[in-house]
Structures are given as structure tokens and as C-alpha cells.
């Protein structure tokens, strides 16, 4: 599904460039659960953003189903993000003025889904993460775990091929962490998603078949026993 060849990412700013990723080579198979681990500020989130078409590599290529994400124009990248990729962020990134249901609907806006279908799909997605009864609540009225469930529903409502989660449990307590990990694992198992999870959490990493370790921009792969679906 993914094929990264000799990928480097350099950030130029304030006179001194920062190399976030250097000569990274990686393949991710369809339906795989890949955990990305490493110390803070070593390039994990950058790798996830390259996989999600949120950024372009400074060198090398990021192929997704044969298409080089670095060479797609902005509109094509937007379309790809709208259809193929689902994102889950550490800080949930919900729009504070919209209800849970409306936050989920936001993901269907670029797909030009009609109002009625948009609402029904959003409600179904919320029910899938056990938040059907909280559809009309604003993010501020939900707990951290519930907000992350809304964010997961928002990522899944468009039936993406890949779910990219950046520290999904980073802002949650232990109980909620297990809850969210179980939810993500269940969705990965049931939907046949490709799941890439950036995490510090070894509990999460243990569920992945492969772990990508990033240190100072360099990536190494550690194979684990394959996790059963």
C-alpha cells in the first residue's frame, strides 16, 4: 500500500535547517497495523504527515497505491485525504462550536454527501463508537475519551483505507487509554483498515505486528509476532 524510498524531510527556518527524517525506506502492507515509536521530536509525527499527504518530502518518494504523494497537486492531495485517509490526533482537534454529530459530518463535506445521508452516516459512526446518545453534545460537554471517540468516528465515517493516529492516547488516562486502544484495534480488525499509530505507549506498540523506531530521523523496523485479526 505504501512504499517510501529514501525519504528525507528537512525544515528550513530561522537560519538553521532541521532534518526530521533522513533516508527513510519503509513499506506498509494493506491491512497492516504499524506502530511508530521513538523519543519526542525525532520525526514520528513528520512520518505520519507524509503518509497522510499533509506534507511533502524534501527528497525521496512516498508512493501510496502507486501514486507519488509528493508530486500530486494540492487539490488531488485534498481529494485523497478526503477519501482515503482518516486522521486521529492526540489533542482530538474537534471544532468547539459544532456538536459531536456535526464534527463527524465535517469529514463528509468535501465528499459532497447530501445533508440527509451525511446526518445518518454521522449518527451511525457515533453509534459505532458508543456515542449515539451524545450526538448533540458540544466537545466541551464530553470527556477526553468521548472526544477522542468522536474524533475516531470522524475519521471512520468516510470509510477510509488508512487510519493514521498520532498519539491517540496521549491525552487520556489509563482507563480511557485502554478503551480507545481496544476501540481502534477492534475497528482495524473488523474493517480491514491499514492502521498506522504513532505512540509512546508500549501497550499500544505491543499490539502491532511491526514497530517502526525513529531516532534522530532514522528509521529502523522491528518485527514482532504478527497480531491476529
Amino acid at each position, binding site marked *: 500500500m505504501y512504499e517510501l524510498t529514501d525519504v528525507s524531510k528537512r525544515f528550513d527556518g530561522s537560519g538553521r535547517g532541521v532534518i526530521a527524517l533522513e533516508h527513510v525506506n519503509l513499506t506498509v502492507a494493506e491491512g497492516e497495523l504499524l506502530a511508530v515509536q521513538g523519543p519526542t521530536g525525532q520525526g514520528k*509525527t*513528520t512520518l505520519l*504527515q507524509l503518509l*497522510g499527504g*499533509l*506534507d511533502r518530502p524534501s527528497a525521496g518518494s512516498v508512493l501510496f497505491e502507486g501514486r507519488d504523494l509528493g508530486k500530486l497537486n*494540492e*487539490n488531488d492531495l*485534498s*481529494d*485523497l*485525504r*478526503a*477519501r482515503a485517509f482518516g*486522521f486521529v*490526533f492526540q*489533542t482530538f*482537534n474537534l*471544532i*468547539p*462550536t*459544532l456538536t459531536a454529530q*456535526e464534527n463527524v*459530518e*465535517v*469529514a463528509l*463535506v*468535501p*465528499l459532497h454527501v447530501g445533508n440527509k445521508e*451525511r446526518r445518518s452516516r454521522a449518527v451511525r459512526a457515533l453509534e459505532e463508537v458508543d456515542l449515539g446518545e451524545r450526538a448533540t453534545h458540544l466537545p466541551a460537554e464530553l470527556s477526553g475519551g468521548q472526544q477522542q471517540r468522536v474524533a475516531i468516528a*470522524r475519521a471512520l465515517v468516510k470509510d477510509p483505507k488508512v487510519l493514521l493516529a498520532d498519539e491517540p492516547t496521549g491525552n487520556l488516562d489509563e482507563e480511557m487509554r485502554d478503551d480507545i486502544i481496544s476501540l481502534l484495534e477492534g475497528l482495524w480488525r473488523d474493517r480491514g483498515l491499514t492502521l498506522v499509530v504513532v505512540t509512546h505507549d508500549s501497550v499500544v506498540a505491543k499490539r502491532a505486528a511491526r514497530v517502526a523506531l525513529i531516532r534522530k530521523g532514522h528509521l529502523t523496523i522491528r518485527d514482532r509476532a504478527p497480531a491476529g485479526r
Partner: protein
Amino acid sequence: MFFTYLGRELRRRRKQAIVVAFGLALGIGLVVTVSAASAGVKTAQTKVLHSLYGVGTDMSVTESASAGTGGPTRFRFGGSTGTRPKAGTKFSRNNLTPTPGEATFASSTAADISKLKGVSAVTGGLALNDSNISGTFGSFGFGSGGFGSASSSSSSGSPPPVSLSSFSVAGVQPTSTGVGLLTASEITSGRYFTSADSTEAVAVVASSYATQHSLKVGSTVDVAGKSLKVVGIADMPSGSTTDAFIPLGEAQKLAGLSGKISTVYVSVSSASDVATVQSEVEHIFPKATVTTSADLAKEVTGSLSNAAGLATNLGKWLAIAALLVAFGIAALLMMGAVSRRVREFGTLKALGWRTRRVVGQVMGEGLTLGIVGGVVGIGLGFAGSALVAGFAPTLSATVGSSAATSGGFGGGRAFTGGSFPGGGSRPGGFARPAASLSHPVLVHLTAPVQMGSLGLAIGLAVAGGIIAGSLGAWQAARLGPAAALRKVG
């Protein structure tokens, strides 16, 4: 989703939205008020000009009397020069003469002017002065008193009383063309002339003159010693100096000026044609004095002129400054708001929203604030206009002597003196020049809100919203999704 998101976002930033909308509203309200005050000043100027110039007139064509013509009004009392009438003989004489200083010319001039390109309407007028002197001859001629500037005066006791009076008469086309000293729209009682009145003994009198002399429709008024039936009362603007209007043919007959007029009132098709038509008229009538409304407006002085200056200079710049400040504040606040929502826009882009859609969302918010500001601003503009109209003092206007005398606008009153057989000439016995010279025209300033200024207000509101929204949107659009997410990461 667009409107839900937009409405919720504005509600979340309620205070800021109110500041932006109210700032725009103040600027727009000021524009509407200044525009209304400007329109009011223009209306007042039009009233002043109308009182001197005639309704719908863009230019007047007159001819100055040449040196050695005209002269003082002479009353003939019979007998040969040097023969003094007997003491105790009563006398009463009327004289209907052209307004001093103005020459008469062929009425065909009006027809010639009407053929010029750009001329939309033309009418000829004959400005006359009806003067009457009555009294009793004394042993040594007239008494010395009584030659004041009032329209009527008399002396009593010895020497014998002499009564002098004068009023202005204008001969007008019996068929209203919508241009000239009198039009059908000014008739408040009775009727305007009809084509059948061309040489009839009928008159329309100004309401002020009618009140002064207790005239009403059906009354009679004497012009050149002939009784004319009053068929209409006209409400003339403040400053108008014409007392009675009679059909042009009748005026020419009574004044012995058959086929003559003293002024041609011209209306042109568009303001841009005025200069061309003026030039054409001066070309084909080299002796003509062509005065445009712009020429006359330049001669207007007094508080009205000051108000006009205030509206066009201070008011205009104040409104522009207020608008710029409002736009600036709105743009800064929008940019500030957007900078706090970078993560939000980064998330939307990560979800597949195109930059265009994000920009549209931000601009929609700016536009909504602009429209709300525009609506409130129009309300403030109406309120401001009402305040201007309610509290503005009555303005006065005085027309410079050069315009009043050289232009020869209808209604100029003059009674320059008398020359009596055997009694010699008494120049300057009494004089009543154009009222505008001796009495400033008073006009109440109104501030009518113009449809055009409402359109301008809406346009400015939309522009303000778009400007504010665009700057915010530019800020939102220039960051890629990863950079936007990193900003908070």
C-alpha cells in the same frame, strides 16, 4: 453545514463580532448621514437657485441692455413738457416695463435654441415690472416723502400725498414645459394656464403676494391698469421675486413688446451637455449672456455655502477616515481571530477540505459581519440624517451681485425713479433690486437619505466584509495542513 458552522463561530466570538460589525456600521452610518446631508445641501441649493432661476433650468439666456437704452421709468401725465398740471388734480398712472438692465429680444430665439443638440426643453419668459404712481398734484409738484424701498409707500399731510407701488410680473408660456419660472407643479390652488389662455386676461399669483393682497382664485389683479382674473395660486420657493405670472402673449401685449422675450430658460438632456450647449448658444447668439446653474451656484454665499463646503470637504473626509478605520479594525480583528483558529483550519485541511472551502468559510464570516454592519449602519444613517434634519439651523444664502444682475434672472424688481414732465427727473427715487440681494434666502436644511447612498452603503459593507474576510482567509490559506497542525503541536 456552511451556515451552521458560520453562525456558531460568530456566536462563539460574539463580542468580537459585535465590535467588527458595529465598527463597520459606524463608518457606513457616517457615509449615509454625510451623503444625506450633502443631498440636503444640494436640495437647499437647488431651492435657492430655483427661486432665482426657474424649475428644471440648466441655463438661462439673456441679453444685457446696451448703454443708453432702458433708463428710468417715465410716467406720462399728459400735457406738453413744461406744462404743469393744476394743483389738486388727481392722477394715477401704470407702467409695465422690462426689468431694468435686461434687453428684450425676438421670441424666435427660444425656438432656435430648442433645435440645438442636447437641448431637452426650452421656454421663453418676459420679466416685467409693473409700477404705479397715484396721488394729487400740489402747487409745487410732488411732495418729497414716500420714495422708500417698500412696495408701497405714501406721504401724508402737506404736501399732497403720493402713493407709489410696484410688483413684478412674468410672462410665461401658457403650456407648461416643466422648465422656467413657473411650472404646473407649483400650483397649489386653482390651475395652471392652458393654451386657450394665450392672450386671455388671466393670471397666476405667488402665494405670498396673494396673502399680502388678500387674493384668491377668482379675484382680480391689475397689471398695467388691466384687470386680470386670478386662475391659480402658486407656492413659489423662498426668495422668488415674481409676484404675478401672466400668459406670455398677454404680457407682450400689455407691455407693448409684441414678439419679445427677455429670458430663455433651457433644460439640457444631461449634465455633460451643459458646456456644449452653452458654447453653441454663445456661438449663434454672440450678444447673449448664458448663465448656467453652476455659474450661479458659485455666486451663492452665506451659511448655505458654508454648509455645502462642510458637507463636501469635512464630511466626506470624515466618512472616508471612519470607513478606513472601521475596515482596518475589522481586518485586524478577523486576522486575530483566524490566527487563533490555525489548528482548526489545519484539521479541516487534513480532513480533505480544499483551501478554497476554508477561505470561503472565513470570507463568509467576514461578509456576514459586513452585511450586519451595513444593515445597522443604514439604520444609524437614517438616525443621523434625522438628527441633522431635526437640529440643523435654517441656512441663509445670498447670491453675489454679479450673478443676480448679469444673469438677469426673472423677478428682479427695480423701480429706479421717475421723470416727470415739468418736474424734472428724480433719479433714485426708490429702488427695489432683486430680493436675493437685499434679503438672503432662508432654507431649512433637510437630510434625505438617498437610494443611491443606500446602495453605496451596502456596497461598502460588502466590501468591508470581503476585505476583512480576505485578509483573514489569506492568513488561513497560506499555511499548509502540516504547518497549521505543527503551529499548535
